[in-house]
């Protein structure tokens, strides 16, 4: 009883003491304030601005007073804009080709690098390097490598009688960008897969070995299901990233030749920052956001369903 009283009194004292010195809720906010301010300034306000501007005709230069609301006018115009649909088509090709190939090659590389190879740590670093190299350096290097006349790539391909025009051809420019995207993403994927492979349940492999399961059976029944959450994560992040692909396009092709590499991000940039049609560009941004969201949810749900079924 005395003990209980003491405990109770002690607890009460601590609570009171805690109340006395306990930082108010504001202290917590102070800790996260720098980040929060950044999010508000660079994400929230632009996001709300885009939402509002999507329903306006605005050229930036005319200032806030020059904003004219035009209802759904921009969205009607988007529906009739062949440039927009062309850009959407190119973006879909870019996403649908580059993302699965990046994931598949990343998985293969991850599994290979998970084996006891000599110099494995160095190899892992080398394959991850493209992901962290400056985009300008990457762009300029590939530009030289893929020079149709003097580039190393074509000198090699020449042996097989192939000489693509790469960035100087409207047929080859997008494939060239896809090759670059895959090259840049495979190392990243392999590293993520590597960490997932470390978590794969060892005992199941040992049991499978005892049962005499083949390598393919072990991959299908143990490895793949354990990697599915990672695969979903990679697919979602890569789809979002590829849909927003801009840097290399701006640096290397500027959307060309013609409009052969004008993906939706670059089309939005042209519309906003070259033509100063900020209202229309915001509407394109909004439509693209919804499209990417749907694509991501679709991928997520489909893969999640498979994961649960497995």
């Amino acid at each position, binding site marked *: 009883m005395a003990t209980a009283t003491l405990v109770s009194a002690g607890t009460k004292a601590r609570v009171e003491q805690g109340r006395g010195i306990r930082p108010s809720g504001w202290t917590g906010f102070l800790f996260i304030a720098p980040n929060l301010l950044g999010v508000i300034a660079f994400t929230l306000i632009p996001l709300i601005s885009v939402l509002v501007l999507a329903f306006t005709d605005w050229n930036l230069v005319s200032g806030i007073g020059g904003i004219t609301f035009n209802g759904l006018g921009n969205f009607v115009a988007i529906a009739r804009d062949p440039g927009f649909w062309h850009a959407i088509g190119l973006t879909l090709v870019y996403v649908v080709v580059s993302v699965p190939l990046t994931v598949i090659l990343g998985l293969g590389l991850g599994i290979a690098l998970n084996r006891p190879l000599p110099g494995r740590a160095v190899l892992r670093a080398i394959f991850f390097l493209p992901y962290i190299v400056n985009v300008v350096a990457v762009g300029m290097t590939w530009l030289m490598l893929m020079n149709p006349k003097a580039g190393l790539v074509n000198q090699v391909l020449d042996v097989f009688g192939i000489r693509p025009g790469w960035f100087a051809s409207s047929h080859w420019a997008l494939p060239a960008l896809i090759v670059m995207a895959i090259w840049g993403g495979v190392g990243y994927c392999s590293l993520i897969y590597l960490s997932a492979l470390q978590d794969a349940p060892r005992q199941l492999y040992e049991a499978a070995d005892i049962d005499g399961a083949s390598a393919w059976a072990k991959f299908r029944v143990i490895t793949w299901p354990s990697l599915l959450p990672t695969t979903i994560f990679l697919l979602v992040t890569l789809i979002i990233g590829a849909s927003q692909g801009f840097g290399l396009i701006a640096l290397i092709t500027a*959307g060309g030749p013609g409009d052969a590499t004008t993906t939706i991000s670059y089309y939005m940039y042209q519309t906003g920052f070259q*033509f100063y049609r900020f209202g229309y560009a915001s509407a394109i941004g909004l439509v693209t956001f919804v499209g990417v969201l749907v694509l991501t949810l679709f991928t997520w749900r489909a893969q999640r369903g498979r994961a649960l079924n497995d």
Partner: protein
Amino acid sequence: MGAGLAAAVVPGCSGGGGGRSEALQVWGGVPAASGPADVVKAFQQKFPQYKVEYTRFVNDDRGNLKLDTALQGGVDIDVYFTYSQGAMALRAGSGLAADLTDRVRADPELQVYLDTEKPRSYIDNGKVKALATAREPFFVLFNEKLRQRAGVELPHAWTIDEFRATARKLTTDKTVGVYTVPDVARIALGPNYWYAGDRSNFGDPHFEQGFRLGREMIADGTAFPWTEVLSRHLDAYQQNAFLGEEFHLWSTAPFNLRYLYDAKKYPHDFKVAFAPSPTVDGKDWNGGSFSNFIMINPKSPKFEAAWAFVKFWLTEGATPMLKGGKMPALGNVTDDQIVSGMLGKEPEKYFDLDSFRRVVLTSEPKLATDTRLTGFPEITLAVKQQRDLCWIGEKDPGAAIREVRRLADAAIARNERRP
């Protein structure tokens, strides 16, 4: 650069969004060391009551956006430059340029800025909003070493067909005759050549003629392969290929002369001679224009100082800009100043001065300054995209021009509809 001037010329942002600086804030796209610093210095010597800070913005999409947002956001800018016609229409039409009509009208030295036949100013709804500080005529440069080796005469006047024939004579196994063809339609049609009434003018056959000529010369090896141009981003670095003697003839403008008088920085061992732009069907419009428009921010509380600076630049201060190839719009410089300003310290060593005097100093090229600018950025992009497709051999010149026409008509219609 003296300490005072160092304080007057600042890189990056100045003024900030907050309080106004006492100094006059001038934003331009030319690096301070390429002339503006000396203009500022001379202005401050003549008007010690004024201090000037020059801020350089890079004259590309991002740099212009930075200037526009700064102007719109109330950053302390009193005077600024506009280099692209598309941006000019937007700025002048959106209240970002003060009305200078009365000042120009009242000044006898500036009366030429009211001329609408050979416009040196941008007039928006009858109001003078921007004044050209420079004239940049196009000409054709010859690599003299290669020209003499090929035994080709330096033309004093020539047609576009003779231009093509010359390029053919100059083409060898290792070098190409010409970088690219001059703008045939511009030479034939002059200013505002993209517009006809309320539609585009791309139905004019000279546009297709220009595309076809370029394509044929690329195909027969007398013009630089456009696949190379695209894959080496050569359009922005033409001077490197000219200095590297990859081609002989270069249709260009004075701002590129700065690469030719500094052999330490840009090594080469040949002289350069000048020829006028070729004529097309007897028409001789020059592809160059009056340019580098100076404007005053209507929000500036220092209008008098701003106008003093603008007038100084136009009437007496622009000589230092010659080193970057900017010839004063009013022509108020001597021939000697132009030679020493534009051709460096040893003009005889790197240039054929006779041809320079003939082509640049004594002739009066008909500059084609555009004043109609509806949908200008959209049309610019359409022309570039279709030209690229045509010149890499993927699209027939006729089809390419028809696509330009379709896109230009749409851009004009859309922009005419806007409030």
